[in-house]
């Protein structure tokens, strides 16, 4: 696998693609198993307009269509996109920031040859992921005994792959222009999230035309699972990827390559300016290195800004957006039977509170806070070990337990800021949107539970980080726990035999009692808080008992 840049890149990155594909395959298998026992006869009683809105063809609709849709429309597409972004941002910018790109170009290899090899490896890995998804979709149906007639598994696999590839190529292009991995992955992920929101929300308020500017629209709007591949959509997604390649081709050739170095932040630029130096020095300089907690929190202020910013703006706009949803849509939502409401997270989308919970608090906010706090948990201990700063840190008079506690406090601080920002955005949006049904108590309640919920996953990541000293293990362990518990909450509740297991999921403790409407269930809050404290308590001895790596 070390024959050339192409094979080495595949060797380095195939693992993340395989993990993503197998995680999805496992979720799909369990999802089909859960859906198999669900009585979906009520779908056939829904008005034709509702079925059309949901992209359902009554002639072909069945368990397979529902289950695959639930897996691939959101979670699957985000996982595949995330894998591609990770590979794309590492391709050029990652090598540059690690200081290995110069070493690579010390060989008879042009920049553009390197780019082509890296692009080919990204493409190849995505093809492997796509094939695995397709194979696992067929195999899962066979194993569980679900009829797949009428669903286009090949089409959805190709569409997923093309959609993911586009964001990977975008990350690669940005990395080729900037040499900054964080910027490449951040912007690409931002475009992906905004695309998802735009493509799904704008049609609700009769803004289909505007939705066309988001690439995600060309993945989801024609429902390749139910309708097969749309040639136009494929052409747009593939064309945009080619455009990204051309952009990268130009970018990588025309700029000075960076040596291994630090990224200049806005604070750095302000510090360099004599006018603002003194003030920013105080804020970004000595203040942020005053102790371990503040330093750890400051390392994640960028990610906090992005994740909390997304949720803040969603919190602000969604309650207002509700006013623009045509009445007939609201009426359609109101006709949903209880069984269907249970399937979309137990929220009644015909009410403002249900709409806000469904659009903000069911998936986007949980994912955002998990990304933030799981990154912190992984970075807190394993990050220091992998970057070989832990030894230096521990040359100071601080115990391992103290390090765990102080890093945990930083995590709690950021979780609180995230929760507060979410509550603020949602409450201001609620006031401006005039959604009297939503109370301040409800907003604070759901934000508090969201904060505690995020800390549980931060705690999982911290514990895995403490036990292994490996950031990747911590990240993937947290992802796996999040997927499994989301699955338990979303699907097991639909079954007769295993519905009780859903009560073990943090998603259930967070959303199960509809906190935006009913306020805080203190039992749920205690379960979330207690789990977090238990995970931190476990982390300290796990960290103390092993040899450190860096």
């Amino acid at each position, binding site marked *: 696998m070390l024959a050339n840049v192409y094979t080495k890149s595949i060797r380095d990155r195939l693992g993340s693609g395989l993990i993503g594909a197998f995680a999805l395959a496992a979720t799909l298998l369990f999802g089909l198993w859960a859906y198999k026992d669900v009585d979906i006869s009520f779908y056939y009683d829904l008005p034709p307009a509702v079925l059309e809105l949901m992209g359902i063809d009554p002639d072909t609709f069945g368990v397979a269509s529902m289950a695959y849709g639930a897996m691939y429309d959101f979670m699957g597409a985000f996982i595949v996109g995330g894998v591609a972004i990770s590979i794309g941002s590492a391709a050029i910018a990652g090598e540059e920031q690690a200081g290995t790109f110069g070493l690579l170009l010390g060989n008879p290899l042009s920049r553009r040859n390197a780019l082509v090899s890296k692009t080919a490896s990204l493409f190849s890995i995505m093809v492997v992921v796509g094939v695995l998804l397709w194979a696992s979709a067929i195999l899962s149906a066979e194993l569980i005994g679900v009829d797949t007639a009428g669903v286009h598994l090949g089409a959805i696999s190709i569409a997923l792959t093309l959609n993911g590839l586009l964001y990977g190529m975008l990350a690669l292009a940005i990395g080729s222009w900037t040499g900054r991995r964080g910027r490449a992955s951040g912007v690409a992920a931002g475009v992906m999230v905004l695309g998802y929101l735009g493509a799904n929300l704008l049609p609700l308020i009769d803004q289909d035309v505007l939705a066309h500017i988001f690439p995600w629209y060309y993945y989801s709007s024609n429902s390749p699972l139910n309708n097969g591949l749309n040639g136009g959509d494929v052409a747009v997604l593939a064309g945009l990827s080619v455009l990204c390649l051309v952009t990268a081709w130009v970018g990588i050739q025309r700029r000075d390559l960076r040596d291994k*170095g*630090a990224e200049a932040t806005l604070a750095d630029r302000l510090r360099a300016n004599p006018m603002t130096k003194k003030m920013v020095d105080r804020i970004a300089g000595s203040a942020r290195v005053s102790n371990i907690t503040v*330093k750890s929190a400051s390392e994640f202020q960028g990610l906090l800004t992005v994740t909390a910013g997304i949720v803040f703006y969603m919190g602000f706009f969604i309650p207002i957006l509700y006013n623009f949803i045509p009445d007939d849509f609201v009426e359609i939502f109101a006709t949903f039977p209880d069984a269907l409401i249970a399937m979309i997270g137990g929220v009644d989308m015909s009410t403002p509170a249900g709409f806000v919970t469904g659009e903000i608090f069911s998936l986007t906010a949980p994912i955002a806070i998990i990304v933030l706090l799981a990154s912190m948990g992984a970075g807190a201990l394993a990050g220091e070990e992998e970057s070989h*700063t832990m*030894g*230096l840190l521990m*040359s100071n*008079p601080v115990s391992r337990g103290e390090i765990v506690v102080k890093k945990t406090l930083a995590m709690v601080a950021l979780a609180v800021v995230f929760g507060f920002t979410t509550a603020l955005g949602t409450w201001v949006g609620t006031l401006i949107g005039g959604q009297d049904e939503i109370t301040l108590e409800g907003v604070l309640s759901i934000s508090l539970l969201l904060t505690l919920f995020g800390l549980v996953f931060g705690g999982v990541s911290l514990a895995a980080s403490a036990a292994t000293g490996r950031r990747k293990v911590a990240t993937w362990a947290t992802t796996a726990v999040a997927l499994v518990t989301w699955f338990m909450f979303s699907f097991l509740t639909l079954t007769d035999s295993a519905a009780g297991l859903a009560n073990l999921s943090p998603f259930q403790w967070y959303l199960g009692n509809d906190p935006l409407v009913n306020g805080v269930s203190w039992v749920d809050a205690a379960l979330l808080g207690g789990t977090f404290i238990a995970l931190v308590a476990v982390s300290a001895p796990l960290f103390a008992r092993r*040899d450190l790596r860096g």
Partner: protein
Amino acid sequence: MTDPAILTEGLTKHYGEVQALVDLDLEVKMGEVFGFLGPNGAGKTTMIRSCLDLIHPTSGRATLVGLDSRTDSVAIRKHIGYLPSDLSMYGDLTGRDMITYFANLRGGVDRSFVDELSDRLQADLGKKIGDLSSGNRQKVGLILAFMSKPQLIIMDEPSTGLDPLVQREFQAMMREVAMDGRCVFLSSHTLSEVQRVADRVGIIRSGHLVDVESVDDLRSKAIRTVELHFDSPVDASVFESVEGIRDVMVADHHATMSFDGQMDALLRVATEHYTLLDVNTQEADLEEIFLEYYRQEGAAV
């Protein structure tokens, strides 16, 4: 009586089947610069990391400044400065931020002394660590190790990337620490540096401590290079019977050899067969001593 700076008793560390450190007994005194020498993978860093409680010894114990490395690890860190090998720091902080951070964690750091160290090492503290060259990063690391005037400074390959002028200043700083009654533990394979600054040297090989000597003693009993000049061409086989002789090279009237035996025996053999015109002996430097230990290792393998 002052506690030793470092005292290890049977310190052992295994990684599965690999014996990284075997039964290491070592005493390093206050008031000295102690050089710790060994080839790559000999166990130098493992020994240091065990003493600092970054890794846990399989058996044995270590005390630093009289405190147990396991039970008193936090208290120990108040009294030590540490510079790891392959120094990594927070790339997004400036050198000054980095020093501020560690000064905050440590407490009691005299900022004027930091400025003095910075001047002596010509360190650029205004730039981000990630933008510094390896030598300039190393200077920041040295300031971190020295700034609190600790009782014991442990450094693992500290001269990496330093230019000769800064190296000289750094060596002076180490000597000042020893003269101040404190201790420097210097792990290195820059032998010339150890030779210049160390009072005593420990040599580690394959996890075993094979020798601890003062630099002067080590030199005195070391192999010397001997050159003999005769009035006629000589035959190398003449010297084969002399104990302690090796690597004999003969060129016309000259014979050159490595020798760690009795000079009397050598001269007797030399004058028995030829007329000896001149003798020249050179004391071996640490480099040769070190290479000799390497040879022994090769032979053992």
